């Protein structure tokens, strides 16, 4: 086997093509910091990138990765993790992808408590397709696809994740990098489905949810917030309805992960195991 070339094991890929000032820069940095802090290397982690400005990180961060279809990163990750549950699996994608196009996968991934960490770039718009509203856009928001203002009320990602069974629910803000890196690290350390909704200003297409807006409307969870208390988490998640955005880990609990519940994965990873060689004996079922 050849020598491992250390330079190829650096997380830094191509220079990002995000707009200057875009909140995605902070998320990219936050992920890199979290991966380094856990002493991972690009060959020891699998990342799934959705399609969107957010997902374009595929070329900016080095890792074994899939740059999937729009809305499908999370569903794809479910299969990845089952095939190799020994590697950490990180999903990143936009609010359009994860709460809209792939919304059904989101619900069911929460139910299943798959051992994945999901970072949602919440910018309230479809960045890559030039600024149409996303599912988290405030009611009445005007965009190219909703010139008279969006009729629907926004999705509440935190409540959604909590009520569907995610076992780790957090919210970060891209301008608060150290906390974001900690949340990502904690999410990856958590066994089970971790949802981290990240408030991410899109400086080009969203003139409402700006850095100033979030600096004004975010708050740190109170000192005495008990993240193991589901009711308290629900309470904090509801403040979003009043345009108050909690930052930190709202909820963390332990429940067997989907992988824990599969006896097939009790020892080796599915991808590492020997082949099933007794198929002839299955013929007994047809005699």
């Amino acid at each position, binding site marked *: 086997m*050849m020598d491992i070339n250390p330079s190829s094991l650096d997380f830094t890929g191509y220079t990002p093509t995000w707009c200057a000032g875009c909140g995605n820069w902070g998320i990219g940095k936050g992920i890199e910091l979290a991966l380094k802090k856990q002493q991972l290397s690009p060959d020891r982690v699998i990342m799934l990138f959705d399609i969107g400005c957010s997902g374009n990180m595929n070329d900016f961060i080095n890792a074994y990765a899939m*740059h999937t279809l729009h809305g499908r990163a999370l569903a*794809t990750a479910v299969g990845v993790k089952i095939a190799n549950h020994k590697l950490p699996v990180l999903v990143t994608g936009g609010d359009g992808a994860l709460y809209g196009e792939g919304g*059904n996968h989101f619900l069911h991934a929460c139910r299943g408590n798959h051992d994945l960490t999901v970072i949602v770039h919440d910018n309230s718009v479809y960045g890559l397709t030039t600024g149409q509203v996303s599912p988290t856009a405030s009611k009445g928001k005007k965009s190219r696809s909703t010139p008279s203002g969006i009729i629907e009320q926004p999705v509440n990602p935190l409540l959604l994740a909590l009520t569907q069974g995610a076992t780790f629910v957090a919210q970060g803000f891209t301008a608060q990098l150290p906390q974001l890196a900690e949340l990502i690290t904690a999410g990856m350390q958590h066994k089970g489905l971790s949802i981290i909704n990240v408030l991410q200003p899109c400086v080009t297409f969203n003139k409402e949810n700006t850095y100033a807006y979030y600096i004004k409307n975010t708050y740190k969870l109170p000192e005495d917030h008990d993240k193991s208390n589901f009711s308290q988490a629900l309470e904090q998640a509801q403040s979003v309805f009043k345009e108050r955005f909690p930052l930190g880990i709202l909820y963390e609990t332990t429940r067997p992960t989907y992988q824990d519940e599969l006896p*097939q994965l009790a020892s080796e990873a599915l991808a590492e195991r020997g*082949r099933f060689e007794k*198929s002839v004996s299955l013929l007994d079922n047809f005699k």
Partner: protein
Amino acid sequence: MMAKQQTAFLWKVGAPAGQGVMTTGLLFSKLCAQSGGNVFDYAEYPSLIQGGHNTYEVLCSTSPVNNRAWQVDYLVCLDKVTLETHEHRLRSGSIVLFDPAAGKISPTGDYTIIALPLKELLAELKANSIMANMIALGASWALVGGQRKKLETLIAEQFGKKGAEIVKLNQNCADRGFETIVGNTTTTITFPWHKPEKTPIVLGGNDAFSLAAAAADCRFYASYPMTPSSSVLATLAAWQKMTDMVVRHAEDEVGVVSEALGASFAGVRAAVGTSGGGFALMTESLSYAGIGEIPLVVFLSQRPGPATGLPTWTEQGDLLFACYAGHGEFPKIVLAPGDVTEMVVLTKQAFDLADIYQTPVLVLSDKFLSESRMVLDSEVVERELSTPPEYGKTIRQVDELPYLRYKNTDDGISPRLIPGTPGTHYQANSYEHLEDSHTTEDPEERSMQVEKRLRKQATYLSNHWQMPSIEGSLERAEYIFVTWGSSKLVVSQARDMMDQPTAHIHFTHVYPMDREKVAALFAPNRHYVLVENNATGQFGTLLRSEAGVDIKHSIRKYDGRAFYSEEILAALESA
């Protein structure tokens, strides 16, 4: 009176849904197979759980059988509707088992009705009405001259798990049915029953796919229930503890195929199963498998569409959809087994081809093939199941850096590294990419990757594509039948019934196909007859576009039912 010798018979049972017809049919089929008969069995049922009319028929013969037959020799009626619905398939001399208490009937044909007083017997046996099927089973077995003891042992085997009491009750009912008939020698036949040398195996198309998938090292199967593919999900799920395969019932078909691609990328062989509607939802991901070069096996069991169509009936209506599914241009391999043995062989091959060519491979079935069960040659099946898989250029270590996931190669195939291998990394990119897998929009790199991917198709055609099988002499045949998929079955049977010399060209590797080699099979001035279970002659269209062959005469059926040989013969006569 002497009992008649018989070399083949068709037995059919009918009842309202929920009356246990499937069990009666399956058990009767097993009795026949375990007593040395060659069986072919098939169930028909509407998409209803209660009500509606269910049937199960078993064709049993001294020689191998590969299709249903039109004439019903024994019709077991658990209600009046059964007789009314199937009376037109009775011949003179057919025998009908009927309970006079089920209502007044006015028979129109020259067949024999034997009274089977189900109601009365149930009362006598203190059994509830569902046990009528066991009485009918016993009566049927007596009618065809089966061994009484066999009933008892099979029922013990079948119901053993449910406890001694249930076994006894079922045995009593069956035995009582047997006894009711057995004295009546005027109507029983003797079939040359015997103990077969080896216990025969009886498999349907879905069973065959499941077995071959397990043998092919498939470690991840995901599906969302949809008839007629659902029994694969149930079968593989039931075997999980033994096979260690992970079987997932995911939230929807988009999730199903996405998960399979994730599992495949991460290093395990993965497959999905569905029918047309579910497959429609999967097509975007098929295209991702194409550009990301991710192996994937898709089991597509067709049923009549469009939309919800006829959920529990049969059609070969999705051929062109399958061949052309997925946006953009990428190689895809479509295999269409024509019988259950071919299903075993081609499923095994599908998993190898998916790895070798790193692209989606589709295995086409239909309700008829998926659920028709036949006796297979166990030696052939065992050999096939035991052959180790071929993984192509799947690698678990790299010899050279940088590792180029999408390296431009002569055969179009780039070594595919299993993620997690130390020292490097890459992405399975749904965007166009460079050899090293980073996204690109460069025109030259784009063209190179397009050509590289399409070269895999050429490599497949020269290394693995298989010519259609040919039976009979193409030179001497008056009619040359052309089939793909399950219509092979009816044509083989129809040819046996014809006096004229005929030949049969049967395609399994339906897409892509080698233009020159296929064209060479078709000579001018010969009479080709294309037999397809669809309305528009889709394989005819495919032959025209892929091989430049235009078959003028085709026989089609699209009422949701599979062909009978008699229909083929009649169509030829009227042509």
